[in-house]
């Protein structure tokens, strides 16, 4: 539903594009902000979850009698307390199975029981008294191993979908996806040079610093309250209510301040368990994950194995591109391989292209979304091959990409034809950027890569109330992770023509506002922002009508300008303008409270592209990599609050740096995670990094009144490849496996030396 998008180029913004202080700022620098674990309630109990020590085991018997008898224990729950109410909804059943193991424990850390007790020690002691009779089964954690015939099978209900003929035997391959067009075989025949390589990436975790936490309070009347750190409290409400057989109206969920999510807080883990414990104990129950639990039992992203084959002419034009992607998404269906496959070649203008994806299950925690789910790994593989091909045809990476880049009118690799997109502008801007001209030091290499992400809109609902003094109370339903309340205030102020500080935005609880989709898909500034603008326009309609009443003229004879109602023209009458405050002061007399609303399913989010440049220095004796310089160039459509747009660019780039160099899930032969902590799961620390330069491009999105595009996710797509290209250039050898840890780099250097 393109709105007044025609105006957006002409439009000169008053407050949008400025950098005011965020409304939640003071609370967050003084320690007052209340996050998930910061809430308490009278009579609160401590909830703790017992987790499987085995990667794969049949649960033959659970004996909780001793735990129940322990003084101070008020409730114990197991699978028996979570009857299947999902009536045929396979995805919801997987969630149910994931939050509390049923016939089998499918990964180390899988919840098998939970207790609520008067204090932490009692809860901990109670867990030790729960006796579980396991039959340990063979396990598999590697994606390629899980696909092999004879691999331990997790579910006897999975028969690969999307292949002909449909298999008779169950396997770990859930589904085959295929995207593309043209004839790749024919395309490769036309190629002068073909590069074909296989890549591997290890699983990584979103690594939000705040562990999952919630405080549940359910009474015997079935009414419940839940305080929780989540990216989507409406999702939490609906999912928990369905799993526990509660009326949605009876469960009120309040989103706490959220200490990072990156996609990892777009589903439920402990929330239904806390509610079940509270219902059973008839007391408030707080459940907080330990960091160890976060790593073992929340939702990391997929590990992958990817083949890429691309052919080019001597002139540097791609003739065909083919990829096969294998993603394991943990113990349940739903790895992000479909989006990996769709996005694989999305940056290029291709006549013959194919991407095949396999969704694979293994004995690992059920994956959750992680920033542009599935895309970074695919970009790592493709952009590595692109860089190699460019050099083989004697072109620079950037000229090769410009020559083959997707543009308006390109038929995308996943099907649809692109409208106006921002890839070429980021490439051309990158080419001019001083970073590209800067000299390199010894043992340094420069790399670049492009990235793509879809973005989406989703269900959104906003309520805007005009107070009697003309200030505005804005209620949104999308949790604020990175400063979105500031952006909402900016857009409401822009539309109403009032100062930023006259608007206060809050994240309303699930009983105070209509349904809102999760804060994900880079949708909040786009979709909640558009709803805010439309709610403001709705309020303006009402304000002008009230002004008309006050003046005794026709509503359509009144216009709205810079926060004032004015007669539309001379013949409308000669009245002094009425400010929003003056109109609001008369609200009671002119028909009651003045409010604007907007409820819709936002679409037209508009795809997003970025180009990253990185200089890396590799110590040839130790294989240590230092990121010397990093630049992000991305299309934001319109930057509502540029500081927080830069923040998204920088944060995404640095998560990518961690993914590329040091972060990985390391499993032992026993199928247990060996590095479930921040000591050995190595996310970047401050001293690892340079400043992250950013360039915001603004190619307006026709689908948004201000031209806004989502920016949250695209920034993590290019870094893996960008750094791999920089490290490969510095080391003089192509790295094809992430993370590029020092032992891997040194081994590659040794292989190269041996070959020479």
């Amino acid at each position: 539903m393109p709105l007044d998008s025609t105006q957006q180029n002409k439009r000169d913004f008053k407050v949008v594009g400025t950098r005011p202080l965020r409304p939640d700022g003071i609370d967050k620098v003084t320690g007052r902000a209340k996050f998930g674990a910061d809430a308490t309630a009278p009579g609160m109990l401590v909830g703790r979850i017992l987790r499987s020590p085995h990667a794969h085991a049949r649960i033959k018997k659970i004996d909780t009698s001793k735990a129940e008898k322990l003084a101070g224990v008020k409730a114990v729950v197991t699978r028996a307390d979570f009857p299947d109410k999902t009536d045929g909804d396979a995805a919801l059943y997987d969630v149910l199975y994931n939050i509390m193991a049923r016939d089998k424990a499918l990964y180390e850390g899988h919840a098998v029981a939970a207790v609520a007790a008067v204090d932490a020690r009692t809860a901990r002691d109670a867990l030790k008294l729960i006796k579980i009779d396991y039959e340990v089964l063979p396990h598999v954690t590697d994606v390629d191993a899980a696909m092999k015939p004879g691999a331990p099978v997790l579910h006897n209900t999975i028969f690969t979908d999307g292949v002909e003929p449909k298999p008779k035997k169950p396997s770990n391959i859930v589904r085959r996806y295929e995207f593309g067009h043209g004839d790749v075989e024919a395309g490769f025949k036309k190629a002068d040079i073909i590069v074909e390589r296989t890549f591997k990436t290890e699983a990584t975790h979103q690594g939000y610093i705040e562990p999952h936490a919630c405080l549940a309070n359910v009474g015997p009347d079935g009414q419940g309250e839940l305080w929780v750190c989540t990216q989507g409290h409406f999702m939490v409400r609906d999912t928990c209510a369905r799993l526990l057989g509660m009326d949605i109206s009876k469960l009120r969920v309040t989103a706490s301040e959220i200490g990072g999510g990156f996609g990892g807080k777009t589903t439920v883990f402990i929330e239904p368990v806390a509610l079940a414990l509270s219902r059973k104990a008839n007391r408030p129950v707080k459940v907080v994950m330990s960091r160890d639990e976060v790593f073992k039992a929340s939702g990391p992203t997929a590990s992958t194995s990817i083949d890429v084959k691309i052919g080019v002419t001597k002139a540097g034009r791609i003739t065909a591109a083919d990829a096969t992607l294998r993603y394991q998404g943990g113990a349940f269906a739903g790895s992000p391989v479909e989006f990996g496959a769709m996005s694989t070649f999305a940056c290029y203008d291709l006549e013959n292209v194919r991407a095949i994806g396999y969704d694979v299950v293994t004995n690992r925690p059920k994956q959750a979304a992680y920033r542009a789910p599935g895309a970074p790994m695919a970009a790592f593989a493709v952009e590595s091959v692109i860089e190699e091909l460019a050099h083989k045809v004697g072109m620079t990476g950037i000229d090769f990409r410009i020559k083959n880049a997707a543009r308006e009118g390109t038929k995308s690799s996943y099907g649809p034809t692109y409208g106006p997109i921002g890839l070429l502008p980021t490439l051309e801007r990158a080419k001019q950027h001083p970073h590209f001209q800067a000299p390199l030091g010894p043992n340094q290499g420069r790399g670049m890569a492009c990235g793509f992400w879809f973005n989406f809109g989703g269900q959104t609902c906003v309520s805007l109330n005009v107070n009697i003094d003309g200030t505005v109370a804005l209620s949104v339903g999308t949790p604020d992770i990175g400063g979105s309340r500031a952006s909402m205030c900016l857009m409401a102020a822009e539309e109403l023509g009032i100062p930023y500080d006259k608007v206060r935005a809050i994240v309303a609880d699930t009983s105070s506002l209509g349904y809102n989709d999760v804060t994900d898909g880079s949708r909040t500034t786009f979709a909640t922002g558009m709803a805010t603008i439309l709610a403001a326009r709705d309020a303006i309609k009402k304000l002008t009508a009230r002004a008309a009443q006050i003046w005794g003229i026709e509503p359509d004879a009144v216009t709205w300008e810079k926060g004032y109602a004015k007669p539309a023209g001379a013949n409308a009458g000669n009245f002094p303008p009425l400010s929003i405050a003056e109109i609001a002061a008369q609200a009671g007399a002119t028909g009651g409270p003045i409010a604007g609303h907007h409820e819709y399913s936002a679409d037209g989010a508009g795809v997003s592209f970025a180009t990253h440049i990185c200089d890396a220095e590799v110590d040839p004796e130790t294989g240590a990599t230092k990121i010397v310089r990093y630049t992000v160039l991305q299309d934001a459509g319109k930057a509502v609050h540029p500081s927080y747009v830069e923040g998204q660019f920088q944060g995404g780039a640095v998560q990518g740096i961690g993914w590329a160099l040091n972060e990985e899930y390391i499993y032992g032969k026993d199928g247990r995670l060996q590095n479930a902590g921040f000591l050995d799961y190595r996310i970047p620390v401050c001293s690892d990094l340079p400043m992250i330069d950013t360039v915001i491009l603004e190619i307006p999105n026709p689908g948004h009144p201000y031209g806004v595009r989502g920016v949250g996710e695209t920034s993590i797509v290019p870094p893996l490849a960008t750094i791999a290209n920089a490290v490969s250039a510095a080391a003089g050898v192509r790295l094809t496996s992430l993370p590029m840890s020092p032992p891997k780099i040194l081994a590659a250097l040794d292989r190269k030396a041996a070959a020479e």
Partner: protein
Amino acid sequence: MSNIHVRTKINGDVVEYVCEADETLLDVLRNRLGLTGAKEGCGTGDCGACSVTIDGRLTCSCLVLGAEADGSEIGTIEGMANGEQLHPLQRKFLEHAALQCGICTPGILVAAKALLEHNPKPTETEVRFGLAGNLCRCTGYDKIVRAVMDAAQEMRRA
């Protein structure tokens, strides 16, 4: 389980509490004293979100027993602002948008304050190593480092 009586000063105020012998100072601050500004990100001293000072020394309150605090002076994020006067670091963090989700912010502010007290004129590298014990996953640290350098400059002028 023998409980221990502790008398200490927190942000300048005398505070007495009773805690269990194996209870960490972080748990005491959060669960017994309602000072939830210090966050638990890991519980093992790897993330710095629970940073406080004890007798002026920066430390992770998750690596200190509540019992050990007896007779010492503790500084937390709650004591950083002076009434309605924000500490320059707090103000600069807001001006530079040096926080996104904000969960690591209290720990980083406490660490940055300790850093500037020992080194009022840090280089970018010194700031980066000084804050290496505080994980932030949102910002990539860029704006945090700028905010600390800017605050340091302002504090030197003052």
